């Protein structure tokens, strides 16, 4: 099945994750505001709010960006991926409070429109020391807004997964803008080895985890068939695939997944219709291939989501010679039924 996207799935996990997000946000604000009031009592409420929420947003952004590569490297992190949306939306809300208070404080009640003022009150776009850093924060906030606003599966369907995915990859652009926003802004006025270090370490950790996950995936993509017979490519032997699980294989640069279940073999595309999750890392549950990311399901024999859902993915023909599995690299139309190979 796919998920019924019109109702939000409120299950006990989501509530538990939301509770932890709320506790984390609360502890963050308590720590930041508490330390500031104790060590810097002359500060103003506006500055305190702007700084507490700006730094909260960048802290949450780091955590959001860690979850993707971690769950690719180790499937035990997948529950975090499943529940990542609310963390992302919380991060946007924190950034929104920061941005809104900054715009009100620095740009309203003047002789021009606040948004016009944001772009024009400092025009030194060609200088690093004087760069209008708030503009960078503004663009980052727009990206985060578009992502939060379209984060529901309703938009995924309506925008098409490709456009949606492209939009959500912009989080890396937003991250770059935010780093520049801070390095060219607050850190120039109050530079400190500590804050520069923590942001640099954060960047190095996030970049290296992404690189590691990408390397791991490119290894899979570089696999080629060691034996080709009459156009059929050798995949592996039957016992190399665990029960109810799959082997991921590459044909014509497409990833496919060959599942072993109920003494049968079927091959389908590895790419989930929802957000492109790796079906071959999923599992057969109740006769359906279940995506490891958000649990969309497909029947292995025809690549269709069980009714009432309508997702369909390509299927591939298999052949078994003795104990060896072969696949025909040409995929069939999405949702085409193929008789599974009996073992």
């Amino acid at each position, binding site marked *: 099945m796919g998920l019924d996207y019109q109702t939000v799935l409120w299950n006990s996990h989501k509530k538990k994750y939301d509770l932890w997000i709320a506790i984390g946000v609360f502890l963050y604000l308590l720590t930041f505001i508490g330390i500031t009031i104790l060590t*810097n009592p002359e500060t103003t409420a506006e500055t305190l709010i702007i700084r507490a929420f700006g730094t909260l947003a960048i802290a949450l952004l780091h955590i959001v960006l860690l979850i993707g590569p971690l769950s690719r490297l180790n499937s035990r992190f997948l529950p975090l991926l499943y529940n990542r949306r609310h963390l992302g939306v919380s991060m946007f809300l924190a950034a929104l409070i920061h941005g809104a208070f900054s715009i009100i404080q620095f740009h309203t*009640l003047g002789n021009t429109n606040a948004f016009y003022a944001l772009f024009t009150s400092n025009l030194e776009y060609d200088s690093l020391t004087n760069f209008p850093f708030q503009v960078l924060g503004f663009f980052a906030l727009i990206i985060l807004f578009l992502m939060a606003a379209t984060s529901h599966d309703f938009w995924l369907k309506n925008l098409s997964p490709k456009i949606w995915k492209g939009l959500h990859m912009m989080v890396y652009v937003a991250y770059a803008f935010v780093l520049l926003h801070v390095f060219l802004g607050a850190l120039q006025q109050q530079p400190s080895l500590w804050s520069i270090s923590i942001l640099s370490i954060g960047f190095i950790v996030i970049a290296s985890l992404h690189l590691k996950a990408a390397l791991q995936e490119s290894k899979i993509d570089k696999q080629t068939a060691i034996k080709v017979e009459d156009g059929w490519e050798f995949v592996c032997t039957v016992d190399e695939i665990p029960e109810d699980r799959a082997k991921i294989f590459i044909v014509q640069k497409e990833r496919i997944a060959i599942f072993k279940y109920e003494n049968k073999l079927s091959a389908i595309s590895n790419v989930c219709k929802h957000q492109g999750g790796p079906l071959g890392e999923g599992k057969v549950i109740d006769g359906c291939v279940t995506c490891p990311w958000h*649990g969309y399901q497909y029947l292995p024999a025809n690549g269709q989501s069980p009714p009432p859902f309508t997702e369909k993915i390509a299927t591939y023909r298999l052949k078994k010679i003795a104990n060896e599995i072969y696949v025909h690299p040409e995929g069939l139309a999405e949702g085409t039924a193929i008789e599974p190979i009996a073992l």
Partner: protein
Amino acid sequence: MKENKDFYVGYIDSVAPKTKKTIKGFVLAAFAILLAIAAIFAFTQNTAKNSYFEFGVDTKITGIYHELPYPMLQVKTEENEYRNIVLLGFGKFSANPYLKKIRNTTKPLSGSTLSIEGNLIYYNGKTLIQITDEEKVVLVTPSDAAKIPQPIAMVQDMELQGEIIDPKCYFGVMKPGKGKIHRSCAVLCISGGIPPVLATTDENNISKYYLITDTNGAPIHQDILPFVGKPSVIQGDVYQLQDWYQLRIDVSDIQDLNQPSTIY
């Protein structure tokens, strides 16, 4: 069955023990990261100044109205002791719109005694007042030209290093009210008619403040905007009127030092 244990489906209410442990570890690590970031950003803030903005609190002041060339009220504090309080409007505006009505009732305004109710802003010996209602500017006695205080010429062609700030934010409304973080706001304030002020700091950390005017002593606003909120070197003639200096400059003499503003 052992393979099954580690497969998580969000809508099925069971999580394998090892997965649970991993998630717990992640949540703990995330909390540690959050608190570390909170502590680092909180501790590394510059200390805010003990400046004040009495938002929502009205204070009535009475004195001689004059212009330096920006609207001011000379208030007598003791015998032969005066404080010149800079008059400001609401938000990022000058006091002029709030003086329109009284200007229509008495002419000239300079030299007349006014009583003004507004919100005080003060720091480091300087006081400013925000006027939010033209009805709270009341004429006490009409103009007497003899009462208008005159600035005295002090030094010619003096070179000063500092930052051009907007005094409303600097002396209390915002913290920080200067430097890069605050720059766009200062530009808007000065563009809205708030007088530009040069703030200097010497090696003993003593600050001096100069109201900036053109070489004829007339107000400058738009021409100085590119230099606001940045360390610069300025040349000009210094005048003094009791507790305020005035610096008469030619904007083209301002030298942008192209340094990040670090004096807070």
